[in-house]
């Protein structure tokens, strides 16, 4: 298989302005007509490498060769003109426009120079969709189509702009298992058509399934490029993580205690007033972890916001230890010993320009241990900060370092340290390990289990199915604002089954019963 090399990245080094070395001497070569996996844990530097390739980031060192000649890629426009297309994890589509309009955006066919030739646009959009067998209604508005189709639109957008090299950044993260399979068939077609696909993922089975070669990255470095059929999944994971991964945690059976949190007939609305949670009822007991899986946007955020007091836009009843919290402020709710790891660590979870110490006491500075009537007790706070930095293995220069200068994993540890150091009875963990390195993820998961064993009630919302599977004592799937399924025997559930509930193909809430044995 002596295919020609279309693109080479040599000795790429990229350091971000906060001092994080995202890529350290990484090289990558791509051949015509291959699906090339870029494999690595969250935070390994895959996305950064691709941002360099797509012209979003300028490398501090290294060069890029396109068809053998050295080139610099100044901007995404530049990358597109050189035949490189990228599909981001978060879609870059205009929801109020049609599929065809989105596809031609920026490269519209013109009529008399000043007018967009819409007929031609629809024709070309249709043509390109048919050519690659994408079953899409090009006149549908983007806001009305499901996630899986949106992704196809993104791919078509790149192809329409003449992409020979297509970068897909974790394309399956937002897809159900069924949609994933469909995507793979289409990617294979693109490969057979002579295009190069870069497939960013950390899911080994997917890489085994469709990729030809894989470049494995670990903490900013390349661990080498391998032919996928010559390397076993366990070797791949060793290279990726640096040691054997234990996905199964040693877990004591749950000792379920009293109800800590009860939700009854909850209808919750987002900031635009759209109803996102529909008539949801459940109980959460001390000593158990309730995992909530589901495609993003099915009401998880609104449920969490209602429980934690961030939003009062709900009807129905939420009780913490038997007390209704509707009239409670966020501080009142926190005083009931509720800890909350928020979904978005930078916008909600911390103040990036304040230092570690200042970030660690935002939820407990009113505690008489840490402040008097007017003044903060600086010395006590300082000592406690150092203790927490040690206990939570936070890598930093000192407690006076700005939080924004830390790596994602360490920022998350600061947040977790802050939330867990109040000895909570209820923990709401929303995507607690999203986008952080393996070490930190494992640490946080272990902490969650420790608290559960100590009798704490935990809600874990996560897009990482492995995580929900391995930690949950009960597993609920959220679909259109309700639990489409609740499983008490988590081990017996398969990913396919879960996928069907996530897609709403199966939905127990509609038939009345929601409990699964």
């Amino acid at each position, binding site marked *: 298989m002596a295919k020609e090399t279309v693109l080479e990245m040599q000795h790429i080094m990229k*350091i971000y*302005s*906060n*001092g*994080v*070395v995202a890529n*350290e001497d990484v090289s990558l070569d791509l051949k015509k007509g291959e699906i090339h996996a870029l494999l690595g844990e969250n935070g390994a530097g895959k996305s950064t490498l691709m941002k360099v390739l797509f012209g979003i980031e300028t490398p*501090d060192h290294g060069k890029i060769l396109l068809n053998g000649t050295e080139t610099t890629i100044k901007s995404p426009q530049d990358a597109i003109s050189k035949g490189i297309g990228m599909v981001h994890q978060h879609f870059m589509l205009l929801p109020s426009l049609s599929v065809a309009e989105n596809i031609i955006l920026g490269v519209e066919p013109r009529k008399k120079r000043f007018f967009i030739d819409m007929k031609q646009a629809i024709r070309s959009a249709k043509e390109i969709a048919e050519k690659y067998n994408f079953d899409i209604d090009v006149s549908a508005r983007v806001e009305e189509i499901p996630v899986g189709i949106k992704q196809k639109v993104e791919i078509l957008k790149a192809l329409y702009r003449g992409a020979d090299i297509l970068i897909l950044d974790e394309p399956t993260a937002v897809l159900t298992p069924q949609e994933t399979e469909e995507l793979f068939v289409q990617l294979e077609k693109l490969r057979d058509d002579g295009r190069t696909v870069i497939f960013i993922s950390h899911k080994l089975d997917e890489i085994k399934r469709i990729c030809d070669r894989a470049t494995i990255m670990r903490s900013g470095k390349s661990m080498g490029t391998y032919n996928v059929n010559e390397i076993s999944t366990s070797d791949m994971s060793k290279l990726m993580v640096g040691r054997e991964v234990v996905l199964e945690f040693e877990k004591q059976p749950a000792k379920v205690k009293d109800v800590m949190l009860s939700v009854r007939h909850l209808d919750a609305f987002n900031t635009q007033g759209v109803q996102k949670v529909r008539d949801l009822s459940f109980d959460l007991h001390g000593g158990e972890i309730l995992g909530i899986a589901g495609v993003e946007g099915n009401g998880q955020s609104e449920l969490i916001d209602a429980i*934690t007091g*961030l939003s009062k836009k709900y009807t129905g009843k939420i009780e913490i230890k038997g007390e209704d919290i509707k009239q409670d*402020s*966020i*501080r009142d*709710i*926190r005083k009931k010993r509720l800890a*909350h790891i*928020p979904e978005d660590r930078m*916008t*909600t*979870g*911390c*103040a*990036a*320009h*304040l*230092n570690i110490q*200042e970030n660690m*006491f*935002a*939820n407990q*500075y*009113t505690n008489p241990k840490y*402040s008097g009537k*007017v*003044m*903060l007790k*600086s010395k006590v706070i300082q000592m406690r900060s150092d203790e927490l930095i040690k206990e939570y293995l936070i890598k930093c*220069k000192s407690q*006076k*370092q*700005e939080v924004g*200068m830390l790596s994602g994993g360490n920022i998350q540890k600061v947040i977790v340290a802050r939330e867990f150091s109040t000895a909570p009875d209820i923990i709401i963990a929303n995507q607690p390990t999203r986008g952080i390195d393996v070490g930190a993820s494992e640490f946080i998961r272990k902490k969650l289990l420790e608290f559960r064993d100590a009798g704490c009630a935990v809600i874990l919302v996560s897009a990482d199915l492995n995580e929900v599977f391995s930690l949950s004592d009960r597993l609920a799937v959220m679909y259109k604002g309700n639990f489409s399924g609740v499983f008490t025997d988590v081990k017996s559930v398969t990913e396919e089954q879960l996928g069907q509930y996530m897609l709403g193909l199966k939905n127990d809430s509609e038939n009345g019963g929601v409990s699964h044995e």
Partner: protein
Amino acid sequence: MSNSVKRFEAFRMFFAIVIALLISFVIIFLVSKEPLTAIYTLITGPFKSRRNFANVIEAMIPLMFTGIGVCIMFSANQINLAGEGAFHLGGLVAAVVALQLGLPAGVSPVVAILFSGLVGAVFTAIPAVLKIKTNSSILVSSLMLNYIALWFATFILMHFICDPGIGSASYTIPDASTLPTLIAKTRIHPGLILALACAVLGYVFLFKSKIGYELRLTGQNEEFAKYSGINIVKVVLISQLLGGFIAGMGGGVELLSPIYTRFSWTSLLGYGWDAIIICTLSKNNPLYTPLAALFLAYLRTGASIMARYTDVTLEIVQITQGIIILLVVAEQFLSKYKHKMIAKEAMASLKEEEVH
């Protein structure tokens, strides 16, 4: 913040000042017939005599008051420009109290300055309340309110405290209410001590007290503060009340100082705007406001001496100020250099890790 980044920020500020001065010099060269004399006077003028240097210190005092006030308001990330109006009203209120209440010496200035502060506090809180109640932009409403303050003060002046013998100024402030001079043959007054005390207390408040901590959390990330359980409305209100109190006090102190004998402010004096540059130079930390105020006062005094003796006008300083603010606020200014420095540090620590 790591030390090298801190050092870099200090260097960046210094560099901004140097560039701004150089540009001002170029302009002086372009417009003046005697550019070297002008620049020489600008720089050395303030040190030429005891009186000139005293002028620097006198000019520093109101700058510090409004600077500290704005530091506190801006720390909560509320771009409230009503400090200007608060200062103006502060002056008016001090004059009214001094003229109308007839309090005994010693008591009168204290009461007058306290009232100035209170009125200033209420005034700067108006845009904050408007924002909380109606979600109107604090920036726009505070800007407009300053003109209401100006014309309100002019109205009171003309109708209630005007000295008919003069026309557009109040009666003379009685001796019982004026502030004494601290140093003979200058007009340096106890306001200096009060301003320095405010700088220290402002620092302690912002960085050591509970409410100051809440205020900075809110200013840095409101979303995060809310999630942590902080009452944003309370924090915003307190910060604007306190900031306005200090700015208003500044107005009162200034009016009762030996510099003025009557209330005659029929246009805004601009200390509220100057506060923004003070605040920018001191990075929102009240403790650094004396330094920033000293620098600005020095530049101002130099410029006014220059304007007196040469053909360059006072306004040149406005240009210098503008450029400094632009360069300090522009995050991208010297950002490549900063990135290189950070990259170098990161690589060095990588090598260190390999050794261990």
